[in-house]
């Protein structure tokens, strides 16, 4: 079946998630939708699967315009989506889940449903017991059930969101076989949303790349991973020659740290940082860099390993002890976990002032805030509520709140959402802090930024890390391969 998306646009508030995207998906092909976090691929797939409506543009199925009002409506038009977390009811059996969501009367026909289920599982060599309970199944098996359920509803376009996360290698190869046979033998259209470039190259015929809400290009597969990386990240400027940094004493020593989170395990990471060093953490979103940086601030307790700040053992200590030892953390969500919407600049300043006095000298706080505002070039007044400032000014103000003598500064996406000028200004301020012996560890989704500012680069993929400390290797091609999962190539 052929699906055409014509001039699809979708905005959330001021954010344009999809801007005038036109794509065609032919039957019998397997497509990959690629893009960094925030590129708009999930939004586009949600529009295509009827989960949300586009602001403008139209969807054509086999040449006829359709209006998809809900996922059910999309399934009636033959478009079904497999979500990252299987949408099933764990207390029910496989058969009951299979029946749920199927059209039918008040009394479902269990017998024919059971026959359909068994027949479909047999065809794809899925080992699904109709009477097993969902909570006993692996993610891979639940995915198989979901595929069968969609196929039994005569879905002709199958969208899969990150289907290989959390399933075994064996389940993955079976899934790929099934998808290939569905496309080649049954003529289905398969659309895969994935971060894993290796999977994409193994499975897909064609890759479509989105960046910041817009379509940037498509390429036939097979192709080199570096081609995909270049499409995803844009042209990465090669590293400029820089004077070597003078590094001081060790500030951060991470040894064999493992962090376990719901999605993945960051496995045995070791890192030594010296004063004045800048280290960038590269990797696709959710590869473990966020967990690692939070472990270095005491926000996540590591499962094992040691963390030393300036020679003192800190693993397992609470966040405020890290702060007392001269660590500062600037999270990505400025208004979610960095600043406080509804409070003024002066109130922020008074809140973060490191003084023991039990009262606030508002007169003094106001004056000092005014000083910071002019020093950091923040466009706002001491009495402005923080949320009325633009993103760049919020970030500059957040930087101005940091203490002057820091040992270690950890940043998540320090220039996300800022224009070039603001981003440069932020980096000027950050690099100036190295003079005071501050080491900087930062996460960024922009390879450009990582290549330009890092002395060393730590690449994360699926919780595993590779250290790149040779400037000659800091190229888009090499980093891209590491980010995409090629170890040490």
């Amino acid at each position, binding site marked *: 079946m052929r699906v055409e998306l014509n001039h699809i646009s979708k905005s959330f508030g001021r954010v344009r*998630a999809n801007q005038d995207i036109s794509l065609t998906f032919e039957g019998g092909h397997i497509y990959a939708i690629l893009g960094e976090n925030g590129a708009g691929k999930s939004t586009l797939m949600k529009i295509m699967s009827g989960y949300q409506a586009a602001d403008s543009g139209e969807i054509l199925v086999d040449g006829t315009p359709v209006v998809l009002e809900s996922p059910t409506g999309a399934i009636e038009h033959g478009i079904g989506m497999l979500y990252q977390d299987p949408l099933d009811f764990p207390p029910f059996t496989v058969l009951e889940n299979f029946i749920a969501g199927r059209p039918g009367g008040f009394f479902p026909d269990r017998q024919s449903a059971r026959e359909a289920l068994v027949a479909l599982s047999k065809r794809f060599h899925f080992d699904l017991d109709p009477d097993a309970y969902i909570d006993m199944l692996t993610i891979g098996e639940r995915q198989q059930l979901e595929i069968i359920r969609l196929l039994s509803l005569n879905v002709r376009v199958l969208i899969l969101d990150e289907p290989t996360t959390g399933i075994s290698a064996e389940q993955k190869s079976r899934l790929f076989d099934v998808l290939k046979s569905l496309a080649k033998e049954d003529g289905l259209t398969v659309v895969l949303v994935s971060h894993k470039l290796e999977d994409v190259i193994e499975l897909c015929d064609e890759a479509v790349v989105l960046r910041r809400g817009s379509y940037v290009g498509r390429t036939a597969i097979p192709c080199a991973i570096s081609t995909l990386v270049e499409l995803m990240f844009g042209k990465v400027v090669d590293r400029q020659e820089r004077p070597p940094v003078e590094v001081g004493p060790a500030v951060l020593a991470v040894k064999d740290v493992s962090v376990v989170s719901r999605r993945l395990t960051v496995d045995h990471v070791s890192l030594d940082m010296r004063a004045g060093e800048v280290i960038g953490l590269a990797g696709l979103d959710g590869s473990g860099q966020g967990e690692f940086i939070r472990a270095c601030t005491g926000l996540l307790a590591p499962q094992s390993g040691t963390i030393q700040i300036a020679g003192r053992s800190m693993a397992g200590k609470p966040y405020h002890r890290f702060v007392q030892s001269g660590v500062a953390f600037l999270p990505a969500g400025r208004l979610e976990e960095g600043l406080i*919407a509804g409070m003024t600049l002066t109130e922020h300043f008074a*809140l973060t002032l490191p003084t023991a006095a039990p009262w606030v000298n508002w007169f003094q706080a106001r004056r000092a805030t005014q000083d910071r505002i002019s020093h950091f070039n923040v466009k706002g007044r001491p009495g402005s509520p923080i949320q009325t400032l633009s993103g760049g000014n919020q970030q500059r103000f957040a930087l101005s709140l940091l203490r002057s003598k820091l040992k270690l500064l950890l940043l998540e996406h320090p220039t996300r959402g800022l224009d070039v000028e603001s981003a440069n200004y932020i980096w000027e301020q950050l690099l100036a802090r190295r003079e005071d012996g501050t080491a900087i560890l930062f996460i960024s989704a922009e390879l450009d930024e990582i290549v330009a500012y890092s002395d060393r680069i730590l690449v994360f993929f699926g919780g595993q890390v590779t250290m790149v400390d040779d400037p000659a290797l800091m190229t888009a091609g090499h980093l891209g391969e590491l980010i995409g999962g090629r170890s040490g190539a």
Partner: protein
Amino acid sequence: MSGIMQETPTRSQPDKVVTQPSPTSMWWSYLRDLLPAVLAPFFGIAVALGIIVLILEWQGASPTVAWDYLYQGTLADAAKRADLVSYWMPLAITSFGLVLVYTAGLWNIGVEGQMITGAIGATWAIRLFAEGHFPVDLGLGRPVILVLCVIFAAAGGAAWALVCAVLKTRGGVNEIFGGVALNFIAQTFNMFLISNGGPWQPIGSRATETARFPANAQLPTFEEFRRLSPIPIYVAIGAFVLVAVIMYVSRWGLQLRAMGKNMRSAFLLGVRTERNIYLSMALCGALAGIAGAFRVMAPDVNKLTASPSGGLGFLAILVVLLAGLSTILTPFVSFVFAMLSKGGQSIENGFLWDHDLSLDRSLVRVLQSTVVLMVVLSFGVRNRFFPPRQTLPTDDTDRT
């Protein structure tokens, strides 16, 4: 993940230049915000009175007679006014405590139970030091015993609030659910103490209450009003000053406000949120406990009863919410509620005995609720049609 929402658009947009407004327009904009805020509750009360008149007319009762009962029961003579003050003070003290925790974003529903444990604590102090249950007779004088009562009451309320706080921080139990459960436990424990041969019920008595407190454990009263004690008034004034200083002057008050607006950001900006949760809950619990003690030590009560709080804790929650968490407004709003409550009792009596008003007693609750509903509604109307400036666009984008 958050923070994605600002990705694309700001990249190309230049920062907006903040223009300096002229002084007159600043005054006008303050007025524009202030007037609806002040007028809204009055408007709500006016609408509520209109509806009440309609209800009473429909039921064939005379609104003027009902109003007369309300007035007679609260403000008509000095004795009634003294009773009103005696009711108002514990309500105000509890409300001041709640201002702290609600500002910090902690929905301390458990305040009712904290009042009860405070009342139990005070009664325990009286039993120990005034009724001679303490192993050694200390021969304490009345002032010392009263101070001990207040301390025990504060400790009882604070301990109960801390249980709720620890359940929240360490057990992951939301303070609302923990509070409801702890209210129930406190109430049940109180009944255990004083009913069916409970340890604090006087032997031979079948009333669910303790014996009357001995004279050296009774609060002093005014010469001319034997049912009003000056002590709760002093404590209420003290609590008001304390909470006002915390909220308007102290660094700690600023931290509580930050926590209420965004607990996560406050934590990352260096506020010791967990410690502040314990401190604010304990302080609120202590004030509620003291208020509970004043309820049972009121000159016309002077015994631990089956319902020491009498729903005053829930009333206090309503007070602080309607006062918009403002320390300054809380005394006035709590006065209005004290009047509604006291006057309601008077109207209830009227319903029972007066032929012009012979209505069902439950109608009083309807009338009281109408006032609350209309005031809340008036806030909604204000936010809808006169929104405060500088609100964030609600934008929960998820594009991952």
